[in-house]
């Protein structure tokens, strides 16, 4: 249904003359990219942070709370988002993509970046949402994983950074209502993509992860059985920015009384080519179970698991707390999920402790999906040397010098190097920033490169 308008417009991308200079380019504006950018900027380095989505924040921004402390996720991430946007040493480019990285020499990278048009003048847009209100096109909202709709003219989130509208040109019907209604006159369909060339001495890759596409496990019925959802969708139902003020199941809006969790969906599973443990699925499921019991005190929550990997600080206590709260843990692999005429969902599973096949009925089933690499786009842009990845596609880093890739001057952190939780991600991002800073200083000593080189554009 989407038009190919964006492709036609991207063909008209115009190169911008000149070469912009930064000490480091950070690729990916999730929690790792924000942390690395802020740390480098605080040390006095000029940083360009490039994010392909219209807002920074990554996936953490979409979560309800973090485990095992149950701190509010957006209360941690939104101050960082604001700090990034306002730091004098950080230039933030959202809705922008790296199209090419040329390795010219030691500490010498030339990066080509495509800045896609929002069709909204960022200087004029006040984020008032008037364009969104009048737009007649409703589409599944990506940030809510399709649980509700968004308009073709939209602001990604109430707390998006930057809080500027963007027009989904492929789904625009050119009715002009947004342009007529915008009180600031910010809508500009004549915006064109622009191509920038940037010179940097170092790169930090923080491209995060993508979630395992649950529909690939056909026996679990995701996408066909309405009341089978993913854990990320449940995260949205539980978060402060959730679609509704309660957990409701998608088929008919009923508050579920009985919720089942299926762990290891698309992880530790050779049949889908991902034998690795995703490190976070056990704990985010246990966290969600606790939050559900807070939101729906009368609900029953059952977690079907192979084994619980509560390996981190405070994790075992968190697991025991969930048990004490009444969360039921069943050791057994779920073989099949079926939808029932009343909207309920039946699980067929092997109860390992009892050694037999059983079935159970729930109002709602949540698939705890695994984490996959999200680096392909970046890896293919690098010319001059090949960035090493592991057998699953995560960026390979030397365990003795964590965050250092095989290419001198390119660092990686967070889930770009493998699945990990938020504290480990932040820790690794800080480590990448420290190593990057040391590298930039050594370059200055070796080659007298002016690390305080002033960025001549963007701000």
């Amino acid at each position, binding site marked *: *249904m*989407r*038009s190919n*308008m964006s492709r*036609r*417009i991207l063909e008209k991308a115009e190169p911008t003359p000149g070469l912009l200079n930064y000490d480091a380019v950070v690729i990916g504006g999730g929690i790792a990219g924000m942390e690395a950018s802020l740390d480098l900027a605080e040390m006095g380095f000029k940083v360009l942070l490039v994010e392909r989505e219209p807002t920074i924040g990554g996936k953490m921004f979409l979560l309800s709370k973090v485990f095992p402390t149950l701190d509010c996720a957006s209360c941690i991430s939104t101050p960082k988002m604001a700090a990034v946007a306002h730091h004098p040493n950080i230039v933030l480019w959202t809705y922008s993509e790296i199209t090419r990285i040329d390795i010219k020499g030691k500490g010498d990278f030339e990066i080509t970046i495509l800045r896609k048009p929002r069709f909204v003048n960022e200087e004029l847009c006040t984020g008032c949402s008037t364009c*969104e*209100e009048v737009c*007649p*096109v*409703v589409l599944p909202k990506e940030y809510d994983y399709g*649980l*509700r*709709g*968004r308009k073709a003219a939209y602001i990604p989130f109430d707390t998006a950074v930057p809080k500027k509208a963007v027009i989904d040109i492929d*789904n*625009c*019907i*050119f009715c*002009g209502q947004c*342009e*007529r209604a915008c009180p600031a006159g910010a*809508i*500009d*369909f*004549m915006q064109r993509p622009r191509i920038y060339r940037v010179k940097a001495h170092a790169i930090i890759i923080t491209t995060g992860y993508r979630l395992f596409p649950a529909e690939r496990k056909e026996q679990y019925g995701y996408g066909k059985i*309405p009341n089978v959802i993913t854990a990320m969708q449940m995260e949205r139902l539980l978060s402060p920015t959730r*679609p*509704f*003020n*309660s957990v*409701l199941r*998608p*088929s*008919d*809006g*009923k*508050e*579920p*009384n009985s919720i089942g969790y299926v762990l290891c969906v698309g992880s530790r599973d050779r049949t889908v080519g991902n034998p690795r443990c995703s490190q976070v699925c056990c704990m985010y499921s246990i966290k969600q179970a606790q939050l559900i019991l807070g939101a729906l005190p009368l609900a029953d929550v059952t977690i079907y698991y192979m084994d619980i990997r509560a390996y981190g600080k405070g994790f075992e206590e968190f697991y025991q707390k969930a048990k004490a709260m009444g969360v039921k843990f069943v050791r057994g692999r779920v073989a099949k999920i079926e939808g029932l005429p009343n*909207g309920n969902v039946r699980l067929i599973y092997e109860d390992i402790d009892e050694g037999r096949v059983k079935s159970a009925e729930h109002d709602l089933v949540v698939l705890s999906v695994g984490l996959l690499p999200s680096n392909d786009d970046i890896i293919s842009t690098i010319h001059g040397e090949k960035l090493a990845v592991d057998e699953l596609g995560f960026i390979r880093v030397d365990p003795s010098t964590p965050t250092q890739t095989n290419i001198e001057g390119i660092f990686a952190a967070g889930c770009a190097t493998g699945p990990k939780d938020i504290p480990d991600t932040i820790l690794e991002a800080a480590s990448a920033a420290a190593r990057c800073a040391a590298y930039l200083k050594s370059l200055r000593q070796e080659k007298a490169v002016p690390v305080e080189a002033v960025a001549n554009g963007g701000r």
Partner: protein
Amino acid sequence: MPRRELTMDRLKRELGVQPPKELTDYVKELTAVRNKVINCLRGGGELTVKEISVKTGLPESVVFWHLMTMFKYGLIEAAEKTDDGYYRYRLRGETHG
């Protein structure tokens, strides 16, 4: 006063494009579905997803998706919850009549 030329009109002229028919058809269909749900609630009605589904002939999941979207844009609000766990919804600003 002459009508200001919209940049949208200039884009259409320059690229010689129109939105694809499937997209405009989709929007028409979507608007019709949304209007069915809204009309059902007009006059101060407070209905559950199931009740709206029965009245409109739309699948419950479709009704629910539209209600959640309209909830986001402030067009509807939730009334009380039934004993079997379903919320009733009403149009914002309309009282029971």
